[in-house]
């Protein structure tokens, strides 16, 4: 066979196998998510059917109606949970970002004793699984009276996120040449102005990416929140999912409906910030 045809055929099969592999991988990632969305619109009979019903027979909003309904109709305080989640996630993210920026900038720009050891130490705190800390945290918070409060959970999430935001933002500030801030200082800025007017705008894509990671960590966290919150006024949405389990039954449809509501804000935020992330850092100002 002509070697050109052979090579063409080979690249064709390679392309097909790429697509097939990609399809399988994406299916493994996406099907559970799609299954949750689908189940949120289906009655329990369809959800529990064996063998599974792949093609939906009839979709309705009953699960959503029930979820937003009264206590007797299987309703849960969704809006309260949503507000709790929003307050806790946003506040902890903002604090973690500020601390992360201060810490990241310090690690990127200043020389001080024990810098590397402190940096590694910070990252090591991430190596401890959060659940392992749940019992000590529970005891400390119970003693100090901040258990079952927004403040308590915000504190925990800030502690969880700060090492990560410092590490991420440090990397972004390292990429910005110190000359930029020096040029700004010569142009009349104070060190503080040089940071906010020059370095921060250049690094904002990095700060945004650190922000979204911190937000998603707090928004999705279940293990610690389930230990440290009890009442409707402090429970976050992931913890609220447990409201659908009772002694003998699990309301899968309702749980899926709440899970969908949990996913939507995270998805929207990711899409908004993604633009920033992709636009990335444009280092045209210095020689590349």
């Amino acid at each position, binding site marked *: 066979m002509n070697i050109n045809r052979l090579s063409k055929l080979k690249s064709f099969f390679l392309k097909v196998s790429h697509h097939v592999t990609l399809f399988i991988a994406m299916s493994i990632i996406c099907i559970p998510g799609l299954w949750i969305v689908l189940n949120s619109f289906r009655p329990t009979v369809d959800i529990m059917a064996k063998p599974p019903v792949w093609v939906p027979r009839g979709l309705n909003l009953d699960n959503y109606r029930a979820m937003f309904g009264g206590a007797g109709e299987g309703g849960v305080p969704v809006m309260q949970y949503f507000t709790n989640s929003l307050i806790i996630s946003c506040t902890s993210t903002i604090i973690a970002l500020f601390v992360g920026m201060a810490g990241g900038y310090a690690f990127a720009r200043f020389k001080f004793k024990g810098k590397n050891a402190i940096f590694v130490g910070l990252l090591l705190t991430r190596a401890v699984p959060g659940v392992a800390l749940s019992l000590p945290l529970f005891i400390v918070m119970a003693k100090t009276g901040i258990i079952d409060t927004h403040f308590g959970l915000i504190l925990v999430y800030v502690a969880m996120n700060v090492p990560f935001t410092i590490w991420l933002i440090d990397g972004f500030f390292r990429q910005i040449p110190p000359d930029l801030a020096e*040029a*700004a*200082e*010569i142009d*009349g800025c104070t060190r503080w102005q040089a940071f906010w*007017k020059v370095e921060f705008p250049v690094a904002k894509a990095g700060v945004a990416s650190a922000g979204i990671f911190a937000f998603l960590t707090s928004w999705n966290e279940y293990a610690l929140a389930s230990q440290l919150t009890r009442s409707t006024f402090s429970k976050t949405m992931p913890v609220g999912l447990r409201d659908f389990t009772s002694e003998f039954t699990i309301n899968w449809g309702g749980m899926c409906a709440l899970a969908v509501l949990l996913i939507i804000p995270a998805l929207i935020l990711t899409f908004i910030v993604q633009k920033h992330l992709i636009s990335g850092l444009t*280092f045209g*100002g210095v*020689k590349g």
Partner: protein
Amino acid sequence: MAQVILKNIVKNYGKLEVVHSINLDVAHNEFVVLVGPSGCGKSTTLRMIAGLESISGGDIIIGDNVVNNLPPRDRNISMVFQNYALYPHMTVRENLGFSLKIAKRDQTEIDKSVDEASKILSLEDYMDRKPGALSGGQRQRVAMGRAIVRHPDVFLFDEPLSNLDAKLRAQMRVEIKKLHQKIQTTIIYVTHDQVEAMTLADRIVIMRDGNIEQQGSPTQVFENPINTFVATFIGSPPMNLLPGRVGKNMLEFSGGLILPIPIDFKDIVKPGQDIILGFRADHIMPVGHDLTIDGDSAMIEMSVGVSEPLGTETLLYTQLAGQEILAKMLRPRIVQDGETLTFNLDLGQCNLFDAVTQRNLR
């Protein structure tokens, strides 16, 4: 009047002293170039003048004020950085006007100054572009524009052309010279490129290992280098150096080469003294190729190892007294490798250095 005076300036990093008590007076409107090899302390000195590095000792005076502890913004200086340091998130217009905006100047005044700077540097067509969309030369012009809008007392340039290709570098050199003629401000310029130093400077300051080796006009340092370091650092090609010894009314070199003592040095050298004879390629040429000699000269026969034709002249690599030396041929003809030519050495243009101290004996 914005003269810059450095008095016994010292810089330490911990226990390591990198600049050793240097003194420098830069007059108003003077173009001074600090030149030297990497690590000689020239950039550190410039950064100390800018206020980006603290000083460990001495005084820096700009105008009539001691500015030792003033932050950069209070020194009324501008600086052009090696990698441009343009603000990537701002357009050219915003970059140029940034310093005036920080100083809370009136918008019409900012616009006027920015337009003026953009005209001087021919940047009018790029005003709304961001630095990422500019070529290296354009970026460097924006960096210079950003420096001139403020009408500073002193301009500092930190190796501004080292990121540009050879052609653009030559072009920008001329632009910097024109800029100095137009704006008439004190300029302190750091480079490791001696061609930039020679072409731009009113005065060259040659630094090595944190010390000033020599300062003077380009012609002075070129013709009368204070030591062998300056002799080889300034000028392209570098000065030929031939180690030898003073004999009886003559200089003796290895391989039996004997040359007369240049007349300027006759009363200075002593018999038996180890010396180094220094001469530039321009002062040793094949006979019949345009070298006009007023005083003493010596005829030497040498065979050419390699020749480098450069169009208007040819560089000839030859061996003399066991050393490779470089000669020049004006009005060149084709030279075969290995061809033996008679060279004329202009002894009046030669320098003699002490072999021990390496200093010029003149």
